[in-house]
């Protein structure tokens, strides 16, 4: 029952093969037993989950079930959840119980889904390995010594291990797509403004976007249909109708124009990853798509621009954690300055402090024009690169990450960690949607005896603003033609 897609579970619930309570209990039991190895959850909300499951079962009995009624999932611990600790992976919010639901949470509850708990993450979504969590690192289900990626590492690991069929993530520079790639699942970052940010603890407001992480593109389509839409509480959400994203999944790909950005296949790309990605792209040719090389000339400015803009916004967004109203407060402050200094020094981890310092610096008088203003200009150029490319092609494809999941502790230098996001970060700067789908393995394929060193590779598919239906269609067609997304790590096949 656990090791299947959200779509299949929803069908099972609809057919009465099992109840939401049974499904919820089974998954909670798996989490209890197996998550010690992964550390993918920060908080398990068993009681609330069972209540929600009972309500879902009652709704179904009353004939009021929707397509997602009774479906279990998990939420990255960045989504405010009423009555539940919402930590953002930080000591700062270790005791913070949100008094309200994020819009995404509200919508998922309204759709009848059952949240099992809050998943682990890099502190305040800052990181690419999930090693920056106050609650400890998450282990990759495929390989315990490897990272699951970040910052939505807990969500990715939980889905890959079959602890939940789907989880919500957020993506500011690749935080859905890169862990999806590292854990061999499907993860969608929607267009900026497609999903409300209300109630999602902010990292970098102009880049943050929530999205689904699941086994398949079809699962992601169901979830996106539930969470997308305009929200009067988020001025940056876009007033635009929400289609049923499952409707276009089966459209044929004949004539699809695929662009391969030259800059995404260059220096720094692991040759084994490149081989897998090129092979995957070859599948589309067999489906009737045409390939052409395109250029995104400002790609190499994306990381520097991101590491100006995101920390600048973060330095301001995280100023509210001052020990005055909520969150960590130091013991016996001598005065106001002491309260601020110690509460923040104790409450934030190293990477968060590094980014607050960077952002504070780049916004300072005398540096603003050279950094922030320049980075915004670069951002416009990067966006234009994509718009120009989409004049010629329908979608862009390339690797999600230059390497497969690296070992825990392998990247001690922050810059080498930042370079991990080379293929994902520009997408957030441009505000366009992107999806990562499983596209092979490096170091041995699990189908051939599942060697320990086998690590998943993700194919990233990019579209223009609000092209989610197209991306999901392309990804779904790929998943109809391949079975990479069906390969499971050993832990997923463990039964109780």
């Amino acid at each position, binding site marked *: 029952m656990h090791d299947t897609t959200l779509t299949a579970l929803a069908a099972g619930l609809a057919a009465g093969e099992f109840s939401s309570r049974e499904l919820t209990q089974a998954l909670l039991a798996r989490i209890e037993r197996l998550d010690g190895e992964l550390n993918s959850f920060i908080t398990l909300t068993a009681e609330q989950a069972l209540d929600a499951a009972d309500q879902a079962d009652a709704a179904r009995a009353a004939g009021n079930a929707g397509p997602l009624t009774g479906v279990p999932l998990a939420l990255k611990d960045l989504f405010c959840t009423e009555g539940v600790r919402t930590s953002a992976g930080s000591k700062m919010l270790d005791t913070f119980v949100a008094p*309200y639901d994020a819009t995404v949470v509200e919508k998922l509850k309204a759709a009848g889904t059952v949240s099992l708990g809050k998943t682990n993450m890099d502190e305040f979504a800052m990181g690419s390995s999930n090693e920056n969590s106050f609650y400890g690192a998450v282990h990759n289900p495929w390989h315990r010594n490897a990272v699951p990626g970040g910052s939505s590492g807990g969500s990715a690991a939980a889905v890959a291990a079959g602890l939940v069929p789907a989880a919500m993530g957020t993506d500011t520079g690749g935080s859905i797509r890169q862990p999806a790639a590292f854990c061999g699942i499907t993860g969608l970052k929607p267009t900026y403004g497609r999903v409300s940010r209300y109630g999602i603890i902010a990292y970098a407001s102009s880049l943050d976007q929530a999205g689904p992480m699941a086994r398949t593109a079809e699962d992601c389509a169901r979830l996106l249909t539930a969470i997308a839409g305009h929200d009067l509480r988020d*001025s*940056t959400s876009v007033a635009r109708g929400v289609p049923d994203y499952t409707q276009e999944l089966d459209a044929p790909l004949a004539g699809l124009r695929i662009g391969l950005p030259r800059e995404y296949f260059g220096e720094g790309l692991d040759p084994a990853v490149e081989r897998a990605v090129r092979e995957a792209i070859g599948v589309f040719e067999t489906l009737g798509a045409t390939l052409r090389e395109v250029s995104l000339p400002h790609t190499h400015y994306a990381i520097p621009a991101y590491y100006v803009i995101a920390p600048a*916004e973060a330095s*301001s967004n995280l100023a509210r954690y*001052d020990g005055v109203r909520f969150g960590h407060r130091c013991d016996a402050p001598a005065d106001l300055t002491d309260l601020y200094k110690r509460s923040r020094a104790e409450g934030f981890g190293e990477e968060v402090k590094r980014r607050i310092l960077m952002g504070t610096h780049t916004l300072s008088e005398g540096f603003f024009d050279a950094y922030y203003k320049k980075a915004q200009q670069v951002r416009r150029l990067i966006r234009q690169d994509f718009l120009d490319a989409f004049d010629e092609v329908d979608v862009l494809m390339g690797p999600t990450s230059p390497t497969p999941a690296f070992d825990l502790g392998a990247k001690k230098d922050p810059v080498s960690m930042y370079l991990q996001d080379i293929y994902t970060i520009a997408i957030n700067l441009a505000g366009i949607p992107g999806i990562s789908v499983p596209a092979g393995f490096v170091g041995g394929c699990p189908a051939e005896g599942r060697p320990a060193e086998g690590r998943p590779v993700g194919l990233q598919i990019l579209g223009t603003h609000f092209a989610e239906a197209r991306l999901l269609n392309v990804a779904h067609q790929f998943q109809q033609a391949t079975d990479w997304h069906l390969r499971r790590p050993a832990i997923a096949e463990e039964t109780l």
Partner: protein
Amino acid sequence: MQWETVIGLEVHVQLATKSKIFSGASTAFGAEPNSQACAVDLGLPGVLPVLNEQAVAMAVQFGLGIHAEIPEVSVFDRKNYFYPDLPKGYQTSQMYHPIVGPGEVEITLEDGSTKAVRVHHAHLEEDAGKSLHETFADGRGHAMTGIDLNRAGTPLLEIVSEPDMRSAREAAAYLKAIHSIVTYLGISDGNMAEGSMRCDVNVSVRPRGQASFGTRAEIKNVNSFRFVERAIEFEVERQIELLEDGGEVIQETRLFDPERDETRSMRTKEQANDYRYFPCPDLLPVVLDRAYVDHLRDTLPELPAAKRARFQDELGLSAYDAGVLSASREMAEYFEAVKEVCGDAKLAANWVQGELSGALNREGLPIQDSPVSATQLGELVSRVMDDTINGKAAKQVFQALWNGEGQSADEVIEAKGLKQVTDSGAIEAMIDQVIADSPAQVAQYRDAEPDKRGKMIGYFVGQVMKASRGTANPQQVNALLKEKLDALC
């Protein structure tokens, strides 16, 4: 040396929106601490601001009211600094692209002359909460500071003038002009005691004739017209003394202490914050449609300067009267209502500025709380105009209405029998009686030189008026008395 004072004002006007600038919480004054602060005002993790359209409309109305440019696009920026009553650690304001561009405010000086003060720009921002430093203890005897976030997120319009004012009086006149514009527009209650209007005053002095400005000091948070004048007067004197003693003024922020009537240094330029302004990524730029601005322009009420001109040109009031009566919207509305009822602008002006203002001042009441309504006063004036009562009786009627002894002038006149006696038979009878009762005075009158008699008639008039309990028509009494007394000579 002759010194010239240079003053610029930053006036913070609290806009009279129902809810806060970025949240749905109420802005009503005086509620229990922290009872009017929602998740957004508290700056809880995950919350986002949503701009209140009413605040935008009010800011634009102000801009139109001072004939300012209204840029098509304005942008909110974050002003970053830490303070316990600033929940998010930044204030959302407008640094680079304010909603109101350059404009002009006309001020009227005491001699009736006018002067234009340029407004550099006006921008929207949110207010912070309040730190309450009084009498809090943590139970272990440590003093604590209370935070009340009811005010956090209240919309403010900050109006920044050019350094165009040259005296404390001009500064006060400018502040009054701003006060009257915003209250006319109904975009603020203008209540300075409750903090609805506060200002920061930039003051410098320079030798008369020098083109460049001296170093300025900024006096923060002055909250009354009187304090503005006093703070400037003190500060100017301080700076001149300093300069004349060979010292120099340092650029700093100072605080006015009304108790001790002085300004004190808060922080110098070196200690100033770097606010790290940058565009707020949670709010979209405000784009104003031309049609929207035109609609607001078309529905703008008549403003003080236009009203003053109309009172002079169309109603024939003096410059002084027109200035006083147009100073506040309430005053102008009251005056115009009185005028509407009685039909005589000059008489209406006299009554509003005379009897009514006197009574209001005595009781310390604002005109909108006057116990005598404009309709009541208008009817009273009408009764004077149509000779139903004389001036003396009119004052009695006014007093009776003020005291609530009657619903209308007519009712009071009737009840108190104040109707003017114009029946010459009745007046003659009273005169005859007074003459009969005053043989000594009549003898004096008769013996006096004819040119002295005019003055002596006053006694008889008084007696007749007294006999009529003030109701006899004084002109008639005068004429008849003169006739009868002269007949005796």
